[in-house]
């Protein structure tokens, strides 16, 4: 493998791994903050148990997100030094602001929150977790501002062969952020909601668990989850429309649309030949892609062949086609997982309408623990499409990946770090999952009331 491939592989490994933990941090911080607020307002002990139970899982996950985030900040300089030189003027600023504005706040107040239960008043303690929640999401905002520049460069000019910032407000008001940030925040909330739904469902089906707490957790997660999944789908839709406008090649790859169509059909299932750029087998629905792209049944969606010609004319000879099969299947897996999540969330909401969660149909409740995988699948494939679909560009239209990689880092060094990170991350994943499962199964405390006990028996016998 050459240096570029190794550097890209390392970026993929470290970033996908990092983003395995981030969405849960983003969403669960907000949900734990809501739980503690309920505790402060109601004074009911069950909400304190709830805050502590989910808070423990939050912390285990948070630690992994933080430490893998350090790698993210360092590897631009390590593996992508030419990229860092070229866009440092613009790209470094949001990263530094993220550290100053969000990272300090998040880590300081998380420490205060974990260790401050008996040192602070209830209100100040709840404020600490709100600050963690707000700063985690602010952190995501600044990272996405940086990423948005790579997707849609704005607020810059090229001087002496480097991109220089000339409009900070254009950078932070990049139109790409308005679809990307809400999409990421709502997918964080969906991830947390499904995490809670799955674990609470497990406890609700187990006689010995604290049913009162898990019923309420399930209820909160069902409400937030439904809203969040609807949010994900709506913002995802506007993101796709934005993509048609700003990165048509990514959309064409995500659809395996070889030639321009007007109106454009959408593929339900395509087996294609990527080399020859043709379908081997395809099921397509007429006009649907035009509808998705423009909210109407007409409209031209450009195909890969035409875009390749356009790019060649504009930027010179080269291959401007991203990996089509990965883009196509990532897109389908993401959307498919999202649709299943919508159904599951609405079903969960429906369950909470009744008197006892699960008493109507505990058989289906059994599936919720498995559904935790869905948001993870959607989060990962979503980013695969976003980043791979931009190929060959590292900054869209400005810099190609092959020009971005460090010139003085040898193959041996790249292999060392790639293998090192992969092994380390593998071991840590095992330890993390072990702890998450251990604490997720833990019975936070015995059922408080007789009523919960009866419910447990009725559930178990159903």
């Amino acid at each position: 493998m050459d240096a570029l491939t190794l550097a890209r592989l390392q970026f993929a490994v470290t970033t996908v791994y990092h983003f395995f933990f981030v969405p849960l941090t983003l969403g669960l911080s907000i949900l734990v903050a809501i739980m503690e607020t309920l505790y402060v307002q109601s004074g009911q002990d069950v909400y304190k148990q709830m805050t502590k139970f989910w808070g423990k899982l939050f912390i285990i996950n948070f630690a992994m997100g933080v430490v893998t985030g350090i790698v993210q900040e360092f590897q631009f300089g390590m593996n992508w030094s030419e990229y860092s030189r070229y866009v440092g003027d613009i790209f470094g600023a949001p990263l530094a602001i993220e550290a100053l504005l969000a990272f300090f706040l998040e880590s300081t107040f998380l420490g205060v929150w974990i260790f401050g239960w008996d040192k602070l008043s209830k209100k100040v303690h709840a404020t600490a977790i709100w600050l963690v929640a707000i700063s985690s999401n602010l952190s995501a905002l600044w990272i996405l501002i940086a990423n948005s520049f790579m997707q849609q460069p704005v607020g810059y000019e090229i001087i002496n062969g480097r991109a220089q910032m000339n409009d900070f407000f254009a950078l932070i008001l990049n139109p790409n952020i308005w679809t990307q940030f809400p999409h990421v925040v709502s997918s964080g909330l969906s991830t947390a909601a499904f995490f809670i739904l799955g674990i609470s469902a497990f406890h609700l089906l187990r006689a010995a668990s604290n049913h009162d707490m898990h019923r309420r957790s399930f209820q909160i997660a069902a409400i937030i989850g439904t809203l969040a999944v609807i949010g994900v789908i709506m913002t995802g839709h506007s993101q796709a429309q934005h993509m048609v406008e700003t990165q048509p090649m990514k959309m064409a790859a995500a659809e395996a649309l070889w030639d321009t169509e007007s109106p454009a059909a959408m593929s339900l299932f395509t087996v294609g030949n990527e080399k020859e750029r043709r379908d081997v087998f395809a099921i397509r629905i007429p006009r649907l892609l035009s509808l998705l792209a423009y909210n109407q049944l007409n409209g031209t969606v450009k195909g890969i062949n035409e875009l390749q010609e356009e790019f060649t004319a504009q930027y010179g000879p080269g291959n401007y086609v991203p990996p089509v099969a990965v883009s196509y299947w990532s897109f389908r897996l993401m959307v498919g997982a999202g649709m299943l999540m919508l159904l599951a969330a609405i079903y969960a909401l429906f369950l909470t309408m009744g008197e006892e969660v699960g008493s109507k149909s505990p058989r289906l409740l059994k599936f919720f623990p498995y559904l935790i995988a869905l948001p993870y699948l959607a989060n990962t494939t979503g980013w695969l499409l976003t980043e791979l679909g931009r190929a060959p560009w590292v900054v869209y239209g400005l810099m190609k990946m092959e020009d971005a990689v460090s010139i003085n880092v040898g193959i041996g060094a790249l292999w060392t770090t790639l293998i090192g990170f992969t092994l380390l991350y593998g071991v840590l994943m095992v330890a993390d999952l072990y702890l998450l499962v251990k604490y997720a199964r833990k019975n936070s405390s015995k059922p408080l009331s007789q009523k919960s006990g009866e419910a447990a028996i009725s559930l178990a016998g159903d």
Partner: protein
Amino acid sequence: MDLNTLWFILITVLYVGFFVLEGFDFGVGILLPILGKDDKTRRMIINTIGPHWDGNEVWLLTAGGASFAAFPHWYATMFSGFYLPLFLLLVALIIRGVAFEFRSKDENPLWRKTWDWAIFVGSLLPPLLLGVAFANIVKGVPIDANMTYTGGFFNLLNPYALIAGLTSVVIFTVYGGLFLSLKTTGKLHDSAISLIKKAGPVSAAFIIALVIATYLSTDITAQLGINPGMIPVGAALAILAAGAFFNQQRQGWAFTMTAVAISLSVISLFEILFPRVMVSSTSADFSLTIYNASSSPYTLRVMTIVALTLVPFVLIYQGWSYWVFRQRITEKSVLEY
């Protein structure tokens, strides 16, 4: 003063913040297997820094982010050039951070032992590697006309860099010991004191060696003159004061003076460097400076406004968090970690 100079100062401040704060929690981590003879003691040791280590570490990440924003060529040259040491630094920080959160969440002795070693190694390596890195930055490394590091891994392991790395390990160990003596009572407190009694003279010897090596290996006399000025001299005086206070059993002042000495040493290092940010041993013309490595004036202006607005708040709430957890850890304390 131009913005380039201001950003050089701001990054100095960030590194001072990092070494002064994370310095003692690295030290506490190094002392974990030495002073922590049983699990309860080890937990007490970790809990002294429990609420703070993560916030302290952010100073380093901010310094990295700030050099990316203000001096992108510095960031690019240093991070791609010091590739393997930085990889080791990342591994150390990763296992350390995870270990704090994970070690007490399971009873299994092997589990705890493993993470305790991770804390030890993760606390020992960063001061060693950062000492090596900064010594090389000041001493000079091969950098060509295109600002690209042309040396290898072993170029970085020269005697001067190793002395600097070991000195920083020893100083932070003593500094961590002083912190422990302030944050604990009873046996643990006493064992920290007796350890400093042994380690103090060792660290003094290392400091003297480092000072001599600095005169031999860097262009300090050309940069600062034969009389290096107030700041390096102040650092030396602060070290002496720290020793004197410690001998009078005034650990609070000994700790403060060590913090002052560390701050002034970091500032001295940047003084020797100024206005360069990385010295090229290939040719003085190829050194990276605050001018040829910097961002555009526009970016520097934006970042100045942002930093000067935010840093005071950071200082206030981090200071407040130390106030909240000002009590000593005793055997009866609730141990979260």
